[in-house]
């Protein structure tokens, strides 16, 4: 691959490229031994300007399983940002030391700035409430493995649809597949932003808003739960008022389809009761596992190896 590629938004990847990543991830699951040294002597920099567990660990595990090395930091306080260094300077420095960068930043658009200045591929590992494309790849991989296809689905998006970056990216990704419809389940204050609604309308995608999980449940093929994120609120009162808006309990799944899947980008706080974990439709820990495989495929793709 001669052209330097970055992944800022999920739409930076074509449907064909996503299909390719899923094929490679499937092959990694089937033949892990064939990939264990494929990134030997390559370095991934994980630049995490805000805390993360899953995303950082899965990037780290992904690079290690490919035989590569990982360096970086996991909070802004331990980087030069605490001294006032700009994103662009940090990235120029990091591209001197690494072959590929995965970056998380609390400010929206920071990875876009990084990509402008980097001499190695930059992967957006989450920028504020904006985009989170590798979570979306994880979600697509999960749906592919559990449902066998990425079209012909009714997807329920539940919880914080206003600040939930995973939701925004998932919508952008799924509207490119045939016969996908959405049911938005959220309190009014956490409704989907207008630009997402405009996109859905412009593409002629069927969607509706409901205010209760029970109402949507029987129609769903995928239920995508999200956490109300404390760190996105300027006002703690609003957070406290809205945080328990939607809680999924196992008895609520009685009206759900047998082959429906429950997804969640994790971490959960209390929006999915622990008893749901026992239900075969619970797919969120499987989803976390898929995150590692699809990130392995992504690293190979961005480095031009596969």
């Amino acid at each position, binding site marked *: 691959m001669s052209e330097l590629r970055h992944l800022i938004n999920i739409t930076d990847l074509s449907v064909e490229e996503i299909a390719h990543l899923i094929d490679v991830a499937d092959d990694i699951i089937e033949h892990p031994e064939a990939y264990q040294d494929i990134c030997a002597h390559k370095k991934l920099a994980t630049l995490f300007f805000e805390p993360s567990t899953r995303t950082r660990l899965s990037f780290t595990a992904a690079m290690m399983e490919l035989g590569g090395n990982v360096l970086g930091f996991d909070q802004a306080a331990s980087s030069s940002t605490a001294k006032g260094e*700009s*994103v*662009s300077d940090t990235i120029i420095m990091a591209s001197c030391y690494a072959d590929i960068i995965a970056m998380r*930043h*609390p*400010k*929206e*658009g*920071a990875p*876009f*700035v990084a990509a402008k200045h980097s001499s190695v591929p930059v992967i957006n590992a989450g*920028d*504020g*409430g*904006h985009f989170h494309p590798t979570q979306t790849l994880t979600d697509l991989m999960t749906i592919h493995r559990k449902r066998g296809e990425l079209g012909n689905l009714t997807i329920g998006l539940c919880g914080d649809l206003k600040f939930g970056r995973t939701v925004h990216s998932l919508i952008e990704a799924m509207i490119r597949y045939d016969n996908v419809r959405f049911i938005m389940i959220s309190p009014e204050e956490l409704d989907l932003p*207008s*630009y997402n609604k*405009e996109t859905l309308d412009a593409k002629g995608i069927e969607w509706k808003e409901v205010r209760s999980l029970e109402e949507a449940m029987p129609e769903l093929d995928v239920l995508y739960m999200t956490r109300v994120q404390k760190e996105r609120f300027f006002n703690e009162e609003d957070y406290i008022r809205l945080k328990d808006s939607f809680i999924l309990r196992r008895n609520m799944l009685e009206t759900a389809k047998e082959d429906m899947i429950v997804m969640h980008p994790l971490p959960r706080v209390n929006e999915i009761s622990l008893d749901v974990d026992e239900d075969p439709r619970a797919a969120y820990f499987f989803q976390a596992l898929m995150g590692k495989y699809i990130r392995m495929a992504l690293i190979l793709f961005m480095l031009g190896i596969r």
Partner: protein
Amino acid sequence: MNLDGVTNGIVLDHIQAGKGWDIYNLLGLEKVDCTVAIIQRVSSTKYGRKDIIKVDGDVDIDLDVLGYFDTNITVNRIKDRELLKKVHLKLPETLTGVIQCRNPRCITSVEQEIVHQFKLADPENKKYRCVYCDTVYKEKK
């Protein structure tokens, strides 16, 4: 339209009445080294009243900025006292360094060196989105 007094330069016509000074400031015309005239509240068959700016000199006008401000303005380029070209403005596809993103979560809110940039998202409603955070620009009321 009156082109009198301009040998080589431009005449900005159909400026909304009372907005002549705003356009003068927006284009930084106080810095040009030539004759500039603002004519205010001129009778106009099209708009009732209008302002006109005449610049008698070779100046580089940012048509994108002007188009964002008001697409009704017409730009007349004058050469040897003759109308060389009449340009009708349209909304620019991108705006660089003209308006500021006000989203406190945007990277531009903390890094002062980043030039604010917007893309035209909805021409019908003159909606621009920040290229960094996708927030729609809203003018101060």
